[in-house]
């Protein structure tokens, strides 16, 4: 890596010497008359034209991206709160695109139209309180709307499920570089656990004296959740920070050593239904790690299967309990 820095230094050094020795030969290439501010008006106009052309090309590029890759972004949300998320994203997106278009059209239009012309006398327009209040007030009003809707959604999404609520309780356990899921089992409670109790096969550090832990179920590689039933996730990390990212459900929460974090959502579509919606027979929900966690960060994943409650119960029953 030192080589890289050395390379940069040498390249610069080389250029300096080269220019110093051979400078005369480049003189022809570098002819300008900087003192002359009235310069070449036509050349200046060309720059205005280029901006107009760039503006059009920029919009075309965006349209091209949308046509080519717009369909590859995430499909509609597969969770109940995701509907609110998607509609807020839509509102924000519309506002952003509108403002983007208006301001950029004005920018490129002004730049094109007001390119230097020796017959034009520029306006001496130093301030205008009404205008400035207008464009202080307008964004403020839009923001009040965005903030209110945003906060309403944020509070409802982040509200943890109550103890009494009918739910599936799952602990997602992150370590370099894989995930483990632990289901609360029949009692609906997760047994105590701590990394200080990790010992051989007990790789989650579950307290073997805690009776609540006996019916917990530990699964790897893939985990299942039932459709239309709230799922409460609790996150734990063993070594460094990770982030449990389930993009199709609009769900993400960091996993922090020394801290239990949580997130809950209600899945809306089963894996089969989502395969139909996306027209992709190989579609699978995924849990990704989304916080830099080390060398194999990019490969830290777990498959999520959403299925009917009956199928889910059958699947869960087929898994062994922690202590039977």
């Amino acid at each position, binding site marked *: *890596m030192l080589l*890289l*820095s050395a*390379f*940069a230094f040498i390249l*610069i050094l080389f*250029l*300096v010497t080269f*220019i110093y020795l051979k400078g005369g030969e*480049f003189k022809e290439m570098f002819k*300008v008359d*900087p*003192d002359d501010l009235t310069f070449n008006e036509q050349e*200046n106009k060309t720059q205005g034209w280029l901006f107009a052309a*760039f503006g059009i090309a920029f919009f075309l590029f965006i349209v091209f*991206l949308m046509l080519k890759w717009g369909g*590859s*972004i995430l499909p509609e949300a597969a969770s109940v709160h995701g509907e*609110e*998320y998607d509609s*807020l994203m839509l509102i924000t997106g519309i506002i*952003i695109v509108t403002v*983007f278009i208006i301001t950029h059209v004005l*920018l490129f239009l002004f730049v094109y139209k*007001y*390119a*230097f012309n020796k017959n034009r006398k*520029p*306006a001496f327009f*130093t*301030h205008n309180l009404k*205008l*400035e209040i207008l*464009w202080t007030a*307008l*964004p403020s009003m839009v923001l009040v709307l*965005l*903030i209110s809707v*945003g*906060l309403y*959604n944020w*509070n409802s*999404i982040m509200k943890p499920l109550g103890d009494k609520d009918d739910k599936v309780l799952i602990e997602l356990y992150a370590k*370099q570089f894989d995930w483990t899921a632990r289901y609360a089992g029949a009692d609906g409670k997760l047994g105590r656990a701590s990394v200080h109790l990790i010992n051989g096969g007990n790789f989650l550090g579950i307290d073997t004296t805690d009776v609540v832990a006996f019916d917990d179920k530990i699964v790897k590689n893939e985990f299942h959740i039932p459709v239309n039933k709230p799922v409460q996730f609790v*996150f734990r990390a063993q*070594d*460094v*920070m990770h*982030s449990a990212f389930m*993009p199709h459900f609009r*769900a*993400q*929460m960091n996993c*922090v*050593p020394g801290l239990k974090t949580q997130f809950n959502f209600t899945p809306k579509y089963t894996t089969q239904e989502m395969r139909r919606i996306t027209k992709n027979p190989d579609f699978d929900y995924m849990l990704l790690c*989304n916080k*830099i966690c*080390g060398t194999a960060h*990019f490969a830290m*994943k777990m498959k999520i299967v959403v299925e009917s409650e009956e199928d889910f119960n059958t699947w869960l029953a087929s898994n062994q309990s922690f202590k039977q």
Partner: protein
Amino acid sequence: MDLTHSSHTHKESFITKYIFSTDHKMIAKQFMITGFTMGFIGIIMSVLFRLQLGWPGEKFLINELLLGSWANGGVIAPDKYLALVTMHGTIMVFFMLTAGLSGTFSNLLIPLQIGARDMASGFMNMLSYWIFFVSCIVMLVSLGVEGGAASAGWTIYPPLSALPEAIPGSGLGMTLWLISMALFITSSLIGSLNYIVTIINLRTKGMTFSRLPLTIWSFLVTAILGVLSFPVLLSAVLLLVFDRSFGTSFYLSDIFIGGQALERFGGSPILFEHLFWFLGHPEVYIVLLPSLGITSEIVSTMSRKPIFGYKFMVGSILAIGGLSFIVWGHHMFVTGMNPFLGAVFTITTLLIAIPSAIKVFNYLTTLWRGNIIFSPAMLFSIGLISTFITGGLTGLILGDATLDINVHDTYFVVGHFHIVMGLSAVFGTFAGVYHWFPKMFGKMMNNTWGQVHFWITIVTAYGVFFPMHFLGLAGVPRRYYTNSSFPMFDDFINLNEIISIFAILAFLGQLIFLFNFLYSIYKGKKASQNPWNSNTLEWTTPVEHIHGNWPNDIPEVHRWPYDYNKPGYEEFIPQNVPLKKGETDSGAH
């Protein structure tokens, strides 16, 4: 303070003139050359990891050539890929865009534009540069140590950055990173204090705050942000040093790594995030504000028209500066921080859109009915307005806690901040270099090549960063060595290639700048005293640099700096020209 003695000419040795200089104009050049060299290294790194992202697993001779053992067989190793992105971020944010930008233009322009003979303390100024220089060397040396450079991302979140067992780069590489950063912060603090003191105390007669050019306003607010926030990063860094080397548990608790549970209890990585982002967010504006100041100046001068809404422009700089201290939590919406805090930070964050919108509309109104001269500096300034809008708008998504849930740490973020802060700051830097090159070197840069440089840069820069929003909306996480583990991202293989091709072209475009820059220093055409017909005081100094800036008395200021095409008067009226009979100062409204 009597500084007139420094205007006496006296013979200087090579060492006092070029190396241990206390002259702000020389120190500005030193910051520029060092900062740009670092930036150059940073951009080469980005090209190398873009090769990996565009063509994962493909062998490239250049990797082996430049990276040596980091890329045995021509393919970058996964942990070294992380080292590359970490060092790219660190170098670009701190060394290029903080020191390279503020260090260069604050140093060059503050004394010249406020009418001072030099900085309040020339010695501290020199110290600031040399500490910065040492920190650069330490950072570069860290690239060559065992285990590789720091690899925990430029935000160096513990425990990843605290434990060498977690990633090889968290060994000696991280230690050197922390030492370098401590030095860097020291340098930045000394520099910023100097800037603040100079602006407050050494303004020439008549240079009231309401007559300060917007450049100076932005440098002042930037320096204040630095003084108030960098010490917090220093404390975060020192606590991390303690955790790493002395067994404390400020950030560590309940960790099982390397086959054993560590005896660390009670700490929290979230604490580090709070401390880091308490600097980290103002840092965004430390990077951005000088560029906004520079462009305000250039847009007005090159439109031959006063800046529109000077007072609102100042007000929005102050508002952005103030708000930047109470928004850091928007980097932490999904860390498990109390959701109530998430709500608070959403409100404060989105409020920043108001002063930002004011700035954009005022820029547009300044251009409206102007007479625009497209010098390369003006081209980059217009480019900045565009990137500031494009990048700023996506901030509405990321600043909203709800929407952040699904785009947090994805390529959406990478696209957003590279456009709004990376490109805007880089465009501002280029604009500043093209505009003040005659002041720095007494030569002109080549216009045509400057234009070519601009067009290549803006096209390729948008080509690199705009498509990233689509990757982000598809859920592609940042800092992934390759996306091949997830078939759901296969649609983007071609797009990643396109981005990488643009990145390579962008890099090649910068060689044009490098060449033009170096060529013009030696062989550029001699500059006249005021090549852009500008009103600010730096253009009243002689082309040849002298100690003390003005050979005679410091000019007195009689008006604001934006009297361009004032009806009934000359085309432009420099600040030191007294008001005519019956004339009022247009800035005093």
